[in-house]
Protein backbone atom coordinates (compact mmCIF):
# COMPACT_ATOMS: atom_id res chain seq x y z
CA UNK A 1 0.00 0.00 0.00
CA UNK A 2 1.09 3.51 -0.75
CA UNK A 3 -0.51 6.93 -0.37
CA UNK A 4 -0.14 8.81 -3.65
CA UNK A 5 -1.46 12.13 -4.94
CA UNK A 6 -2.78 11.55 -8.45
CA UNK A 7 -3.80 14.16 -11.00
CA UNK A 8 -6.94 13.63 -13.10
CA UNK A 9 -6.25 13.50 -16.86
CA UNK A 10 -9.84 12.82 -17.89
CA UNK A 11 -13.17 11.86 -16.31
CA UNK A 12 -15.98 11.09 -18.73
CA UNK A 13 -19.19 9.06 -18.96
CA UNK A 14 -18.88 5.86 -21.03
CA UNK A 15 -22.32 4.30 -20.41
CA UNK A 16 -25.45 5.06 -18.36
CA UNK A 17 -24.19 6.17 -14.87
CA UNK A 18 -20.74 4.73 -15.64
CA UNK A 19 -17.64 6.92 -15.84
CA UNK A 20 -14.01 6.42 -16.73
CA UNK A 21 -11.40 8.39 -14.77
CA UNK A 22 -7.82 8.38 -16.00
CA UNK A 23 -5.24 9.61 -13.48
CA UNK A 24 -1.57 10.44 -13.62
CA UNK A 25 0.69 9.32 -10.77
CA UNK A 26 2.79 6.59 -9.23
CA UNK A 27 1.14 3.19 -9.76
CA UNK A 28 4.10 1.11 -8.57
CA UNK A 29 2.22 -0.19 -5.50
CA UNK A 30 -0.29 -1.98 -7.73
CA UNK A 31 1.15 -5.47 -8.05
CA UNK A 32 -1.79 -7.55 -9.32
CA UNK A 33 -4.91 -7.27 -11.45
CA UNK A 34 -8.03 -7.28 -9.30
CA UNK A 35 -6.54 -4.99 -6.63
CA UNK A 36 -8.32 -1.77 -5.71
CA UNK A 37 -7.56 1.79 -4.67
CA UNK A 38 -9.22 3.98 -2.01
CA UNK A 39 -9.99 7.58 -2.96
CA UNK A 40 -10.42 10.53 -0.63
CA UNK A 41 -13.23 12.74 -1.93
CA UNK A 42 -13.66 16.24 -0.58
CA UNK A 43 -16.66 16.51 1.72
CA UNK A 44 -16.76 12.82 2.64
CA UNK A 45 -15.23 11.25 5.73
CA UNK A 46 -14.52 7.74 4.50
CA UNK A 47 -12.57 6.95 1.35
CA UNK A 48 -14.24 5.29 -1.66
CA UNK A 49 -12.85 1.90 -2.67
CA UNK A 50 -12.77 1.47 -6.48
CA UNK A 51 -11.33 -1.47 -8.41
CA UNK A 52 -8.39 -0.86 -10.73
CA UNK A 53 -9.56 -1.17 -14.35
CA UNK A 54 -6.08 -0.71 -15.71
CA UNK A 55 -2.72 0.53 -14.54
CA UNK A 56 0.54 1.06 -16.38
CA UNK A 57 3.57 2.91 -15.01
CA UNK A 58 2.43 6.50 -14.38
CA UNK A 59 -1.23 6.01 -15.29
CA UNK A 60 -4.24 4.61 -13.48
CA UNK A 61 -7.65 3.97 -15.07
CA UNK A 62 -10.78 3.62 -12.95
CA UNK A 63 -14.21 2.76 -14.33
CA UNK A 64 -16.92 3.37 -11.75
CA UNK A 65 -20.68 3.58 -11.47
CA UNK A 66 -22.48 6.43 -9.75
CA UNK A 67 -24.39 4.67 -6.98
CA UNK A 68 -24.42 7.26 -4.19
CA UNK A 69 -23.31 10.72 -3.15
CA UNK A 70 -19.59 9.85 -3.06
CA UNK A 71 -19.39 8.45 -6.57
CA UNK A 72 -21.65 11.29 -7.76
CA UNK A 73 -19.13 13.81 -6.40
CA UNK A 74 -16.40 11.78 -8.10
CA UNK A 75 -18.21 12.07 -11.44
CA UNK A 76 -18.11 15.88 -11.13
CA UNK A 77 -14.33 16.03 -10.63
CA UNK A 78 -12.45 17.53 -13.55
CA UNK A 79 -9.18 17.44 -15.43
CA UNK A 80 -6.19 18.68 -13.44
CA UNK A 81 -7.75 18.06 -10.00
CA UNK A 82 -5.60 16.25 -7.46
CA UNK A 83 -6.84 13.16 -5.64
CA UNK A 84 -5.37 11.55 -2.49
CA UNK A 85 -5.39 7.79 -3.16
CA UNK A 86 -4.25 4.73 -1.21
CA UNK A 87 -3.10 2.38 -3.96
CA UNK A 88 -2.24 -1.29 -4.24
CA UNK A 89 -4.93 -2.58 -1.86
CA UNK A 90 -6.16 -6.16 -1.64
CA UNK A 91 -4.75 -9.41 -2.98
CA UNK A 92 -5.86 -9.41 -6.64
CA UNK A 93 -6.26 -12.36 -9.01
CA UNK A 94 -3.77 -15.23 -9.19
CA UNK A 95 -2.89 -15.72 -12.86
CA UNK A 96 -0.88 -18.90 -12.34
CA UNK A 97 -4.03 -21.04 -12.13
CA UNK A 98 -5.61 -19.86 -15.40
CA UNK A 99 -4.71 -22.75 -17.72
CA UNK A 100 -4.59 -22.12 -21.48
CA UNK A 101 -8.19 -21.02 -21.99
CA UNK A 102 -9.34 -18.83 -19.06
CA UNK A 103 -12.86 -17.43 -18.95
CA UNK A 104 -13.57 -13.97 -17.53
CA UNK A 105 -17.11 -13.15 -16.37
CA UNK A 106 -18.11 -9.62 -15.38
CA UNK A 107 -21.47 -8.26 -14.33
CA UNK A 108 -22.16 -4.52 -14.55
CA UNK A 109 -19.70 -2.51 -12.52
CA UNK A 110 -17.87 -5.79 -11.81
CA UNK A 111 -16.48 -5.67 -15.35
CA UNK A 112 -13.61 -3.14 -14.84
CA UNK A 113 -11.08 -5.22 -12.81
CA UNK A 114 -11.26 -7.94 -15.50
CA UNK A 115 -9.79 -5.58 -18.10
CA UNK A 116 -6.25 -5.44 -16.67
CA UNK A 117 -6.48 -9.17 -15.99
CA UNK A 118 -7.48 -9.86 -19.61
CA UNK A 119 -4.60 -7.74 -20.89
CA UNK A 120 -2.14 -9.67 -18.72
CA UNK A 121 -3.50 -13.10 -19.65
CA UNK A 122 -3.38 -12.31 -23.37
CA UNK A 123 0.20 -11.05 -22.97
CA UNK A 124 1.00 -14.48 -21.53
CA UNK A 125 -0.38 -16.05 -24.73
CA UNK A 126 -3.61 -17.34 -23.19
CA UNK A 127 -6.77 -17.75 -25.25
CA UNK A 128 -9.24 -15.62 -23.27
CA UNK A 129 -13.06 -15.67 -23.45
CA UNK A 130 -15.02 -12.89 -21.78
CA UNK A 131 -18.70 -12.78 -20.81
CA UNK A 132 -20.05 -9.33 -19.99
CA UNK A 133 -23.50 -9.09 -18.39
CA UNK A 134 -25.66 -5.95 -18.12
CA UNK A 135 -29.32 -5.06 -17.59
CA UNK A 136 -29.76 -3.26 -20.90
CA UNK A 137 -27.73 -2.02 -23.87
CA UNK A 138 -27.40 1.57 -22.52
CA UNK A 139 -25.33 0.14 -19.66
CA UNK A 140 -22.95 -1.89 -21.83
CA UNK A 141 -19.33 -0.78 -21.74
CA UNK A 142 -15.87 -2.12 -22.62
CA UNK A 143 -17.10 -4.72 -25.20
CA UNK A 144 -14.90 -3.12 -27.87
CA UNK A 145 -11.98 -2.66 -25.47
CA UNK A 146 -11.91 -6.36 -24.57
CA UNK A 147 -12.17 -7.29 -28.24
CA UNK A 148 -9.28 -4.93 -29.04
CA UNK A 149 -7.14 -6.86 -26.55
CA UNK A 150 -7.86 -10.00 -28.56
CA UNK A 151 -10.45 -11.69 -26.36
CA UNK A 152 -13.55 -13.49 -27.63
CA UNK A 153 -16.38 -11.45 -26.11
CA UNK A 154 -19.97 -12.53 -25.35
CA UNK A 155 -22.55 -10.06 -24.08
CA UNK A 156 -25.77 -10.79 -22.23
CA UNK A 157 -28.49 -8.29 -21.32
CA UNK A 158 -31.43 -9.02 -19.05
CA UNK A 159 -33.87 -7.35 -21.45
CA UNK A 160 -32.25 -8.80 -24.59
CA UNK A 161 -31.51 -5.35 -26.07
CA UNK A 162 -27.95 -6.46 -26.85
CA UNK A 163 -26.31 -9.88 -27.19
CA UNK A 164 -27.92 -12.88 -25.56
CA UNK A 165 -31.15 -12.26 -23.61
CA UNK A 166 -30.72 -13.30 -19.99
CA UNK A 167 -27.84 -13.61 -17.55
CA UNK A 168 -24.11 -14.30 -17.88
CA UNK A 169 -24.78 -17.95 -17.04
CA UNK A 170 -26.87 -18.21 -20.24
CA UNK A 171 -23.66 -17.63 -22.23
CA UNK A 172 -21.79 -20.52 -20.59
CA UNK A 173 -23.28 -23.28 -22.72
CA UNK A 174 -20.79 -24.74 -25.19
CA UNK A 175 -17.91 -22.60 -23.91
CA UNK A 176 -14.63 -24.43 -23.52
CA UNK A 177 -12.55 -23.01 -20.64
CA UNK A 178 -9.84 -24.23 -18.28
CA UNK A 179 -10.52 -21.87 -15.35
CA UNK A 180 -12.53 -18.72 -14.65
CA UNK A 181 -12.24 -15.30 -13.02
CA UNK A 182 -15.27 -13.23 -12.07
CA UNK A 183 -16.48 -10.03 -10.47
CA UNK A 184 -20.04 -8.74 -10.18
CA UNK A 185 -23.13 -8.56 -7.97
CA UNK A 186 -23.45 -11.33 -5.40
CA UNK A 187 -26.50 -13.06 -7.01
CA UNK A 188 -24.47 -13.38 -10.22
CA UNK A 189 -21.45 -14.75 -8.34
CA UNK A 190 -23.68 -17.33 -6.65
CA UNK A 191 -25.27 -18.40 -9.94
CA UNK A 192 -21.85 -18.70 -11.54
CA UNK A 193 -20.55 -20.71 -8.60
CA UNK A 194 -23.22 -23.31 -9.32
CA UNK A 195 -23.12 -23.17 -13.13
CA UNK A 196 -19.37 -23.42 -13.72
CA UNK A 197 -17.59 -26.69 -14.44
CA UNK A 198 -14.10 -25.66 -13.28
CA UNK A 199 -12.51 -23.91 -10.34
CA UNK A 200 -12.19 -20.14 -10.39
CA UNK A 201 -11.67 -16.92 -8.49
CA UNK A 202 -14.38 -14.53 -7.29
CA UNK A 203 -13.93 -10.87 -6.44
CA UNK A 204 -16.24 -9.63 -3.69
CA UNK A 205 -17.57 -6.25 -2.69
CA UNK A 206 -18.25 -5.03 0.85
CA UNK A 207 -18.75 -1.75 2.69
CA UNK A 208 -15.33 -0.85 4.07
CA UNK A 209 -14.01 1.41 6.77
CA UNK A 210 -10.30 1.67 6.01
CA UNK A 211 -9.61 -0.61 3.03
CA UNK A 212 -6.24 -1.74 4.39
CA UNK A 213 -7.03 -4.25 7.12
CA UNK A 214 -7.19 -2.11 10.25
CA UNK A 215 -10.86 -1.85 11.17
CA UNK A 216 -12.29 -5.35 10.55
CA UNK A 217 -15.31 -3.70 8.93
CA UNK A 218 -15.45 -6.06 5.93
CA UNK A 219 -14.76 -9.49 7.45
CA UNK A 220 -16.25 -12.68 6.04
CA UNK A 221 -16.14 -16.36 6.93
CA UNK A 222 -14.31 -18.70 4.56
CA UNK A 223 -13.39 -22.38 4.57
CA UNK A 224 -9.86 -21.41 5.64
CA UNK A 225 -10.94 -18.98 8.38
CA UNK A 226 -12.04 -15.38 8.79
CA UNK A 227 -10.82 -13.06 6.06
CA UNK A 228 -10.95 -9.33 5.47
CA UNK A 229 -12.34 -8.53 2.01
CA UNK A 230 -9.96 -5.57 1.84
CA UNK A 231 -6.80 -7.43 2.84
CA UNK A 232 -7.00 -11.21 2.25
CA UNK A 233 -9.60 -10.44 -0.45
CA UNK A 234 -11.30 -9.07 -2.45
CA UNK A 235 -10.49 -12.20 -4.50
CA UNK A 236 -11.40 -15.58 -3.00
CA UNK A 237 -10.95 -19.00 -4.58
CA UNK A 238 -14.11 -20.99 -5.34
CA UNK A 239 -13.16 -23.71 -2.83
CA UNK A 240 -12.73 -21.13 -0.06
CA UNK A 241 -16.15 -19.47 -0.30
CA UNK A 242 -18.91 -19.86 2.27
CA UNK A 243 -22.18 -18.26 1.10
CA UNK A 244 -23.86 -16.71 4.13
CA UNK A 245 -26.32 -14.16 2.85
Amino acid at each position, binding site marked *: *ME*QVIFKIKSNEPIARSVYRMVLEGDTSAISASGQFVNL*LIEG*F*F*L*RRPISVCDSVPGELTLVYKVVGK*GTEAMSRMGEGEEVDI*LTGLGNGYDLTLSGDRPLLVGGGVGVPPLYRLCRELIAQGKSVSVILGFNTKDEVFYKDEFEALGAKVYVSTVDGSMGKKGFVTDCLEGLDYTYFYTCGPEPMLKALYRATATSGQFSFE*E*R*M*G*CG*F*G*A*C*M*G*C*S*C*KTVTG*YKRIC*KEGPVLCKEDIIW*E*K
Partner: protein
Amino acid sequence: MGKIIDTKVSLCGIEIDNPIIPASGTFGYGYEFAELYDINMLGTFSFKGTTREPRFGNPTPRIAECCAGMINAVGLQNPGVDKVISEELVKMRAVFNKKVMANVSGFSVEDYAYTCERLDKCDEVGWLEVNVSCPNVHGGGMSFGTSPEAAAEVTRAVKAVTAKPVFIKLSPNVTDIVSIAKACEEAGADGISLINTLLGMRIDLKTRRPVIANKMGGFSGPAIFPVAVRMVYQVAQACSIPIIGMGGVSSAEDVIELMLAGATAVEVGACNLVNPYACRDIVNALPSAMEKYGIDRLSDIIGLAHK
Protein backbone atom coordinates in the same frame (compact mmCIF):
# COMPACT_ATOMS: atom_id res chain seq x y z
CA MET B 1 18.17 29.86 20.55
CA GLY B 2 15.31 27.45 20.00
CA LYS B 3 13.25 26.49 23.02
CA ILE B 4 13.24 22.91 24.20
CA ILE B 5 9.84 21.43 23.51
CA ASP B 6 8.90 18.62 25.86
CA THR B 7 6.09 16.31 24.74
CA LYS B 8 6.59 13.66 27.41
CA VAL B 9 3.78 12.74 29.79
CA SER B 10 3.57 10.23 32.60
CA LEU B 11 0.76 7.72 32.41
CA CYS B 12 0.37 6.09 35.85
CA GLY B 13 4.11 6.03 36.45
CA ILE B 14 5.12 5.01 32.93
CA GLU B 15 6.62 7.88 30.98
CA ILE B 16 5.67 8.03 27.29
CA ASP B 17 7.49 10.13 24.68
CA ASN B 18 4.32 11.89 23.63
CA PRO B 19 0.63 11.59 24.51
CA ILE B 20 -0.47 10.21 21.11
CA ILE B 21 -2.09 6.77 21.31
CA PRO B 22 -3.91 5.09 18.41
CA ALA B 23 -7.26 3.91 19.77
CA SER B 24 -8.30 0.30 20.06
CA GLY B 25 -10.00 -1.16 17.00
CA THR B 26 -8.45 1.31 14.57
CA PHE B 27 -4.86 0.08 14.70
CA GLY B 28 -5.05 -3.73 14.85
CA TYR B 29 -1.95 -5.01 16.63
CA GLY B 30 0.18 -2.36 14.97
CA TYR B 31 1.90 -4.36 12.26
CA GLU B 32 -0.28 -3.16 9.35
CA PHE B 33 0.79 0.39 10.20
CA ALA B 34 4.40 -0.61 10.86
CA GLU B 35 4.64 -1.35 7.12
CA LEU B 36 4.03 2.36 6.56
CA TYR B 37 6.13 4.06 9.25
CA ASP B 38 8.09 3.31 12.42
CA ILE B 39 5.31 3.09 15.00
CA ASN B 40 7.85 3.43 17.84
CA MET B 41 7.42 7.19 17.37
CA LEU B 42 4.00 6.86 19.07
CA GLY B 43 3.51 7.26 22.82
CA THR B 44 2.01 3.79 22.80
CA PHE B 45 -1.06 2.22 21.16
CA SER B 46 -4.15 0.45 22.40
CA PHE B 47 -4.51 -2.86 20.62
CA LYS B 48 -7.68 -4.46 19.21
CA GLY B 49 -10.33 -5.20 21.84
CA THR B 50 -9.64 -8.65 23.26
CA THR B 51 -12.13 -11.08 24.75
CA ARG B 52 -11.85 -14.38 26.58
CA GLU B 53 -13.13 -16.44 23.62
CA PRO B 54 -12.52 -15.85 19.87
CA ARG B 55 -15.23 -13.75 18.20
CA PHE B 56 -16.18 -13.29 14.55
CA GLY B 57 -18.27 -10.28 15.44
CA ASN B 58 -21.38 -8.98 13.72
CA PRO B 59 -22.65 -9.74 10.20
CA THR B 60 -21.78 -7.26 7.44
CA PRO B 61 -22.38 -4.48 6.50
CA ARG B 62 -20.63 -3.26 9.63
CA ILE B 63 -19.80 0.26 8.45
CA ALA B 64 -21.84 3.36 7.56
CA GLU B 65 -20.67 6.86 6.79
CA CYS B 66 -21.90 10.08 8.39
CA CYS B 67 -21.18 13.76 8.10
CA ALA B 68 -17.65 14.11 9.54
CA GLY B 69 -17.66 10.61 10.89
CA MET B 70 -18.69 7.00 10.62
CA ILE B 71 -20.68 4.29 12.38
CA ASN B 72 -19.24 0.86 13.05
CA ALA B 73 -20.73 -2.34 14.37
CA VAL B 74 -17.74 -4.66 14.06
CA GLY B 75 -18.73 -6.50 17.22
CA LEU B 76 -15.32 -7.06 18.80
CA GLN B 77 -13.91 -9.45 16.21
CA ASN B 78 -10.73 -10.90 17.72
CA PRO B 79 -8.99 -14.27 17.98
CA GLY B 80 -9.47 -14.55 21.77
CA VAL B 81 -6.94 -13.77 24.50
CA ASP B 82 -4.91 -16.98 24.17
CA LYS B 83 -4.21 -16.44 20.46
CA VAL B 84 -3.68 -12.73 20.99
CA ILE B 85 -0.87 -13.61 23.40
CA SER B 86 0.60 -16.54 21.45
CA GLU B 87 0.36 -15.03 17.95
CA GLU B 88 -0.56 -11.35 17.72
CA LEU B 89 1.70 -10.04 20.50
CA VAL B 90 4.60 -12.04 19.05
CA LYS B 91 4.11 -10.31 15.69
CA MET B 92 3.66 -6.98 17.46
CA ARG B 93 6.95 -7.29 19.33
CA ALA B 94 8.79 -7.45 16.01
CA VAL B 95 7.64 -3.91 15.15
CA PHE B 96 7.01 -2.19 18.49
CA ASN B 97 9.47 -2.11 21.38
CA LYS B 98 7.55 0.06 23.84
CA LYS B 99 4.91 -0.88 26.38
CA VAL B 100 1.54 -1.42 24.71
CA MET B 101 -1.95 -0.83 26.07
CA ALA B 102 -4.09 -3.97 26.20
CA ASN B 103 -7.77 -3.29 25.49
CA VAL B 104 -10.13 -5.80 27.11
CA SER B 105 -13.83 -6.51 26.69
CA GLY B 106 -16.10 -9.01 28.37
CA PHE B 107 -19.67 -10.15 28.72
CA SER B 108 -19.47 -11.05 32.40
CA VAL B 109 -17.34 -9.92 35.34
CA GLU B 110 -15.59 -13.30 35.22
CA ASP B 111 -14.73 -12.77 31.52
CA TYR B 112 -13.01 -9.48 32.29
CA ALA B 113 -11.05 -10.93 35.20
CA TYR B 114 -9.98 -13.99 33.20
CA THR B 115 -8.75 -11.97 30.21
CA CYS B 116 -6.99 -9.35 32.34
CA GLU B 117 -5.27 -12.01 34.43
CA ARG B 118 -3.83 -13.53 31.23
CA LEU B 119 -2.65 -10.17 29.90
CA ASP B 120 -1.19 -9.21 33.29
CA LYS B 121 1.53 -11.82 32.67
CA CYS B 122 2.66 -10.20 29.40
CA ASP B 123 5.75 -8.02 29.86
CA GLU B 124 5.00 -5.94 26.77
CA VAL B 125 1.66 -4.82 28.26
CA GLY B 126 2.08 -1.57 30.18
CA TRP B 127 -1.54 -0.76 30.92
CA LEU B 128 -4.92 -2.46 30.75
CA GLU B 129 -7.75 -0.50 29.18
CA VAL B 130 -11.04 -2.09 30.14
CA ASN B 131 -13.95 -1.39 27.83
CA VAL B 132 -17.18 -1.47 29.86
CA SER B 133 -19.46 -0.62 26.94
CA CYS B 134 -20.32 -4.27 26.25
CA PRO B 135 -23.66 -5.77 27.26
CA ASN B 136 -23.66 -7.77 30.50
CA VAL B 137 -25.15 -11.14 29.59
CA HIS B 138 -25.95 -11.87 33.23
CA GLY B 139 -27.41 -8.43 33.82
CA GLY B 140 -30.22 -8.38 31.27
CA GLY B 141 -27.94 -7.20 28.46
CA MET B 142 -27.45 -3.71 29.87
CA SER B 143 -23.95 -2.37 29.28
CA PHE B 144 -21.65 -2.50 32.34
CA GLY B 145 -20.76 1.09 31.59
CA THR B 146 -24.30 2.39 32.08
CA SER B 147 -24.42 1.77 35.81
CA PRO B 148 -21.96 2.98 38.48
CA GLU B 149 -22.39 -0.28 40.41
CA ALA B 150 -21.66 -2.57 37.42
CA ALA B 151 -18.70 -0.46 36.27
CA ALA B 152 -17.29 -0.52 39.81
CA GLU B 153 -17.77 -4.28 40.04
CA VAL B 154 -15.75 -4.81 36.85
CA THR B 155 -13.08 -2.42 38.14
CA ARG B 156 -12.71 -4.29 41.43
CA ALA B 157 -12.59 -7.68 39.69
CA VAL B 158 -9.88 -6.53 37.30
CA LYS B 159 -7.82 -4.74 39.94
CA ALA B 160 -7.80 -7.95 41.98
CA VAL B 161 -5.98 -9.87 39.25
CA THR B 162 -3.42 -7.38 37.95
CA ALA B 163 -0.64 -5.17 39.23
CA LYS B 164 -0.65 -3.13 36.00
CA PRO B 165 -2.39 0.25 35.86
CA VAL B 166 -6.05 -0.15 34.88
CA PHE B 167 -7.91 2.42 32.78
CA ILE B 168 -11.67 1.96 32.59
CA LYS B 169 -12.95 3.01 29.14
CA LEU B 170 -16.36 4.61 29.56
CA SER B 171 -19.33 4.83 27.25
CA PRO B 172 -20.79 8.29 26.59
CA ASN B 173 -24.27 6.79 26.19
CA VAL B 174 -25.25 7.55 29.79
CA THR B 175 -27.15 10.23 31.65
CA ASP B 176 -24.40 10.99 34.17
CA ILE B 177 -20.83 10.19 33.13
CA VAL B 178 -19.41 11.73 36.31
CA SER B 179 -21.13 9.30 38.69
CA ILE B 180 -19.80 6.35 36.69
CA ALA B 181 -16.25 7.73 36.54
CA LYS B 182 -16.31 8.41 40.30
CA ALA B 183 -17.57 4.90 41.01
CA CYS B 184 -14.64 3.48 39.01
CA GLU B 185 -12.17 5.73 40.83
CA GLU B 186 -13.53 4.66 44.20
CA ALA B 187 -13.33 1.01 43.12
CA GLY B 188 -9.60 1.43 42.52
CA ALA B 189 -9.28 2.37 38.83
CA ASP B 190 -5.92 3.94 38.03
CA GLY B 191 -7.37 6.03 35.23
CA ILE B 192 -10.36 6.68 32.99
CA SER B 193 -10.48 6.49 29.18
CA LEU B 194 -13.27 8.37 27.46
CA ILE B 195 -15.23 8.63 25.29
CA ASN B 196 -16.13 5.39 23.54
CA THR B 197 -18.42 5.76 20.50
CA LEU B 198 -21.90 7.30 20.60
CA LEU B 199 -24.75 4.99 19.64
CA GLY B 200 -25.95 5.91 16.15
CA MET B 201 -27.84 4.65 13.13
CA ARG B 202 -28.30 5.30 9.39
CA ILE B 203 -31.10 4.20 7.07
CA ASP B 204 -30.63 3.63 3.32
CA LEU B 205 -33.26 5.65 1.42
CA LYS B 206 -33.23 3.24 -1.53
CA THR B 207 -33.68 -0.01 0.41
CA ARG B 208 -35.55 1.67 3.30
CA ARG B 209 -33.54 -0.53 5.67
CA PRO B 210 -30.81 0.24 8.19
CA VAL B 211 -27.41 0.48 6.45
CA ILE B 212 -25.70 -1.64 9.10
CA ALA B 213 -26.74 -5.30 9.54
CA ASN B 214 -26.70 -4.84 13.32
CA LYS B 215 -28.98 -1.79 12.73
CA MET B 216 -27.15 0.40 15.27
CA GLY B 217 -23.47 1.04 15.80
CA GLY B 218 -20.87 3.30 17.35
CA PHE B 219 -20.61 6.80 15.94
CA SER B 220 -17.08 8.21 15.84
CA GLY B 221 -15.02 10.76 13.95
CA PRO B 222 -14.48 14.53 14.14
CA ALA B 223 -18.24 15.15 14.57
CA ILE B 224 -18.12 13.81 18.15
CA PHE B 225 -15.08 15.81 19.28
CA PRO B 226 -17.06 18.47 21.23
CA VAL B 227 -18.83 15.71 23.17
CA ALA B 228 -15.42 14.29 24.08
CA VAL B 229 -14.12 17.68 25.24
CA ARG B 230 -17.20 18.20 27.39
CA MET B 231 -17.07 14.76 29.03
CA VAL B 232 -13.31 14.86 29.66
CA TYR B 233 -13.79 18.27 31.26
CA GLN B 234 -16.63 17.03 33.48
CA VAL B 235 -14.78 13.91 34.61
CA ALA B 236 -11.53 15.82 35.20
CA GLN B 237 -13.42 18.18 37.49
CA ALA B 238 -14.77 15.31 39.60
CA CYS B 239 -11.91 12.78 39.61
CA SER B 240 -8.22 12.97 40.48
CA ILE B 241 -6.98 9.93 38.52
CA PRO B 242 -5.50 10.50 35.03
CA ILE B 243 -7.73 10.60 31.97
CA ILE B 244 -7.02 9.40 28.45
CA GLY B 245 -9.21 11.59 26.23
CA MET B 246 -10.53 10.47 22.88
CA GLY B 247 -13.36 11.02 20.42
CA GLY B 248 -12.85 12.51 16.97
CA VAL B 249 -9.28 13.70 17.52
CA SER B 250 -7.69 14.53 14.17
CA SER B 251 -5.02 17.18 14.76
CA ALA B 252 -2.33 18.38 17.18
CA GLU B 253 -4.69 21.24 18.13
CA ASP B 254 -7.35 18.69 19.13
CA VAL B 255 -4.74 16.98 21.35
CA ILE B 256 -3.95 20.27 23.09
CA GLU B 257 -7.65 21.04 23.53
CA LEU B 258 -8.40 17.68 25.16
CA MET B 259 -5.38 18.07 27.44
CA LEU B 260 -6.56 21.53 28.48
CA ALA B 261 -9.89 19.87 29.32
CA GLY B 262 -8.05 17.48 31.61
CA ALA B 263 -6.61 14.61 29.57
CA THR B 264 -3.10 13.33 30.35
CA ALA B 265 -2.91 11.47 27.04
CA VAL B 266 -5.06 11.32 23.91
CA GLU B 267 -6.23 8.50 21.69
CA VAL B 268 -6.83 8.86 17.97
CA GLY B 269 -9.40 6.53 16.43
CA ALA B 270 -11.49 6.92 13.29
CA CYS B 271 -8.95 9.19 11.60
CA ASN B 272 -6.47 6.30 11.36
CA LEU B 273 -8.91 4.58 9.02
CA VAL B 274 -9.00 7.49 6.59
CA ASN B 275 -5.37 8.55 6.86
CA PRO B 276 -3.13 5.66 7.91
CA TYR B 277 -0.45 8.24 8.70
CA ALA B 278 -2.75 10.30 10.97
CA CYS B 279 -0.94 9.53 14.24
CA ARG B 280 2.50 10.06 12.73
CA ASP B 281 1.33 13.38 11.31
CA ILE B 282 -0.09 14.48 14.68
CA VAL B 283 3.13 13.55 16.53
CA ASN B 284 5.14 15.50 13.95
CA ALA B 285 2.80 18.51 14.14
CA LEU B 286 2.77 18.65 17.95
CA PRO B 287 6.00 20.68 18.53
CA SER B 288 4.99 23.49 16.15
CA ALA B 289 1.44 23.56 17.56
CA MET B 290 2.91 23.81 21.08
CA GLU B 291 5.17 26.63 19.99
CA LYS B 292 2.25 28.44 18.39
CA TYR B 293 0.28 28.32 21.65
CA GLY B 294 3.25 29.08 23.91
CA ILE B 295 3.59 25.62 25.45
CA ASP B 296 7.09 24.45 26.46
CA ARG B 297 6.15 21.37 28.41
CA LEU B 298 3.00 19.56 27.33
CA SER B 299 2.37 18.02 30.74
CA ASP B 300 2.02 21.57 32.17
CA ILE B 301 -1.27 22.16 30.33
CA ILE B 302 -3.23 19.17 31.65
CA GLY B 303 -6.51 20.50 32.99
CA LEU B 304 -5.58 24.18 32.63
CA ALA B 305 -9.07 25.01 31.35
CA HIS B 306 -10.36 24.39 34.88
CA LYS B 307 -8.24 27.15 36.42
